[in-house]
């Protein structure tokens, strides 16, 4: 995983594998502190042992490195990664924070591309991206709405990829990412 963009995509894939049909991402970036929270409605995790690379429920291989690698990347900068089962309903919430000015911080990479990729990799997923700035939160991407618009012919489906990329890039720029 060379950058945060790869890690985000990876966490998203975890959600998909856990049977999630809905994923909500919230990000904020102020004064070199990048915060990200990802909430899904998948099967949920059993406990903190998911952060152990040698604990995995899958059968194709016996190690799982995705989460431990991101945890390490966050902690290397003095940040953290927390993961917990949602209490009010099925699913998992994952949060991490990192100091982007730290010498060991991984670069963001192309985060906008990650969101465009998610749209095409999992066409049925309900996905929402919120960006927080100064206390207020704004819904930046809503894949369900985009799909509905595409069905009504308002947005050309083939152009959607570029559209999502550009919207995401524009909004991320506002919080100094990319």
């Amino acid at each position, binding site marked *: *995983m*060379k950058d945060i963009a*790869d890690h985000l*995509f*990876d966490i998203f*894939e975890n959600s*998909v*594998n856990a049977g999630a049909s809905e994923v909500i991402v919230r990000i904020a970036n102020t004064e070199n502190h990048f915060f990200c929270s990802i909430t899904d409605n998948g099967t949920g995790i059993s406990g903190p042992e998911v952060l152990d690379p040698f604990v995995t429920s*899958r059968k*194709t*291989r016996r190690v*799982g*490195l*995705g989460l431990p*690698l991101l945890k390490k990347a966050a902690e290397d900068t003095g940040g953290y990664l927390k993961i917990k089962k949602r209490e009010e309903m099925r699913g998992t919430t994952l949060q991490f924070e990192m100091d982007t000015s730290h010498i060991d911080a991984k670069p963001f990479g192309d985060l906008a*591309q*990650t969101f465009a*990729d998610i749209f*095409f*990799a*999992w*066409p049925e997923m309900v996905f929402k991206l919120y960006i927080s700035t100064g206390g207020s939160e704004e819904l930046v991407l809503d894949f369900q709405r985009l799909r509905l618009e*595409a*069905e*009504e*012919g308002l947005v*050309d*489906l*083939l152009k959607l*990829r570029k559209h999502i990329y550009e919207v995401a890039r524009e909004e991320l720029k506002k919080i100094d990412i990319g």
Partner: protein
Amino acid sequence: MKNLEELRMMREKVKRDLALRTGQHRIKIVVGMGSCGIAAGARDTMNELLDLIEKNHRTDIMVTASGCFGFCAQEPMIHVYVDDQRPVTYRNVDIDAARLIFNEHILNNRVVEQYLFSKGKK
């Protein structure tokens, strides 16, 4: 208000566009997107394939993602399903390999031995 002819054309266009996503596809390409695939550059592979599909105006090809299936050292891997032929799995599919496989296998139905991993059951 648009006239009837315009509306009809719009409807046809949307129908064509939607064919890309709604399952009436002749060809399906599945890209391995586990942690291993992502770390090996599977997102670049997927985007190259999407670009090629767009450039060739092919609405009958679908690209989708799957998780890891246990051969992490051979990532990025893709599976190609054409009609009811045996599915073909390729290994080490970087951007150049994706281009080659698209031109040979997808456009001309010739399996690319160089990147072949296995052929599946029907």
